[in-house]
């Protein structure tokens, strides 16, 4: 299943796409990544891109639902909160950094509880039912002159203020941990909500977010960073709409030649896409 969302906002364009991993196809498993975008127009516009990566091993057998729920909840909670705080920029920043994680975790758990009860899903002995739906979540949001980024768990985020430089707001832990991740299903998930806030970049700046299925397709961080920069160059030339249309086929080739994992990525580009109007959603079975 390929899934692509894209659209425009007052400052530029945004898109997100998910593609099932080669190993999941081979094992007859669903895509356990998810993405969702959101936007508000009018006097207080905002744009949100959310991606999630379900954990996927046997103990997290419903993590595709967990990931889909995570992006839904993240976009909804941030949109609602922005409407509440929009007149008070500082308050929203404080909310984003200190309370949004707690609210998203709580809303995700409520949604999962409802989902599990409806479907008759029970916890495994000694475990919480949330573990079966375990997932990460990453969000990038533009609102009122700022870019706000946050995450629970692994995955990569990059910020460019000018289309040339590239910053990684979340330094990887010194303890290598390629097999485990923080999760919305953890008891203390809201405590591992990491945030970064940047002033809105000039035209040419961008935000890129991806699950580790993409970054793990590259041998090193340097290769991944080089890819992100090349990607932006292609976007600058051809537009994000055209490039995001190609993402499913590109991601498919990356997962087959690289990580084997599901791949999801999202991008918010500033100063591009004046010719793109209106939000488009594509869903296509592959």
């Amino acid at each position, binding site marked *: 299943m390929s899934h692509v969302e894209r659209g425009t906002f007052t400052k530029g364009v945004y898109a997100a796409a998910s593609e099932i991993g*080669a*190993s999941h196809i*081979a*094992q007859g498993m669903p895509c356990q990544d998810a993405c969702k975008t959101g936007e508000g127009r009018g006097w207080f516009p905002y744009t949100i891109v959310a991606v999630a*990566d379900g*954990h*996927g*091993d046997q*103990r*997290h057998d419903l993590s595709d639902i967990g990931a889909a729920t995570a992006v839904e909840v993240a976009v909804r909670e941030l949109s609602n909160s922005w409407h509440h705080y929009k007149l008070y920029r500082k308050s929203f920043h404080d909310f984003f950094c200190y309370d949004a994680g707690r609210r998203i975790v709580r809303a995700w758990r409520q949604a999962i509880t409802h989902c599990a009860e409806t479907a008759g899903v029970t916890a495994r002995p000694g475990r919480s039912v949330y*573990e079966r739906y*375990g997932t*990460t979540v990453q969000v990038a949001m533009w609102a009122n002159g700022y870019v706000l980024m946050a995450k629970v*768990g*692994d995955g990569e985020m990059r910020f460019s203020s000018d289309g040339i430089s590239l910053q990684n707001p979340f330094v*990887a832990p*010194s*303890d*290598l*941990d*390629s*097999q*485990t*991740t*923080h*999760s919305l*299903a*953890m008891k203390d998930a809201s405590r591992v909500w990491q945030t970064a806030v940047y002033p809105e970049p000039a035209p040419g700046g961008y935000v890129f977010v991806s699950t*580790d299925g993409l*970054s*793990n*397709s*590259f*041998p*090193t*961080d340097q*290769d991944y960073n*080089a*890819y992100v920069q*090349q*990607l932006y160059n*292609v976007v600058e030339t*051809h*537009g994000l*709409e*055209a*490039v995001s*249309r*190609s993402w499913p*086929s*590109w991601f498919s*080739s*990356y*997962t087959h*030649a*690289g*990580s*084997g*994992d599901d791949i999801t990525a999202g991008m918010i580009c500033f100063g591009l896409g004046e010719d793109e109007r209106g939000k488009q959603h594509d869903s296509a079975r592959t």
Partner: protein
Amino acid sequence: MTSSDLVPVLEGNIAKRTLQFFWLADCSGSMKGKKISTLNQAVREALPEIKEAVSAHPEVQIEMRAIAFSNEAAWHVGPEPVALEDFVWPDLEAGGITGTAQAIELLSEELSVDKMNRRGYPPVCILLSDGYCTDDESRFESAIQTLNEMPWGRKAVRLAIGIGQEHQYNEQELLKFVSHEEIGVLKADSPEKLTSYIQWASVAASVGASVGKSRMSKDDEHNVALPPPPSEVTLVEDADEDDVF
């Protein structure tokens, strides 16, 4: 023609994630005869088993190396890693004493963050020995401590196979190398067991480490789950003294 047709395919430097596999093989004098010949044959026979087992994970590229230790530790195959498809096990010859600590030191050098790929799978390290370490005890303890302090050392799947009768090797010493206490030291007192454990350890560790999907942190003692080792290997009825080490 649509606009997307004009977009060049962005290929990037895509590569499979690597799993570094290390054999640490004792080739001291006490390994002479059936032990070393069985070890040589068993490792060779394990290679296709590993290939077949990880074929369900085509996203994994196993790279293999081997350290041989007796008076000194030295690369038997390496230090450059060799793709599993190209890996060939040259026969080891036995002689000398048992420099286990030196072998662990050599392993640790290769597990440094600088030399290992951060995006790789947990490395697999299998130690095979039939004797007591002849390096200073303090050197052995220091080697283990260094290994345990290294990020990749902690994340590695580390298994040990004791070769011969239990009194011939130092189980407590080998246990310090092992990452999975519930598995402990695999005791191979016969050629059949040695062959069986080499195959099980190499395959189980490779498959376990290849399950690279994200899992919740803090929910397990180990970052790699392993199945239980094979139950006691049954010797054939007409086994004689040649069937044990």
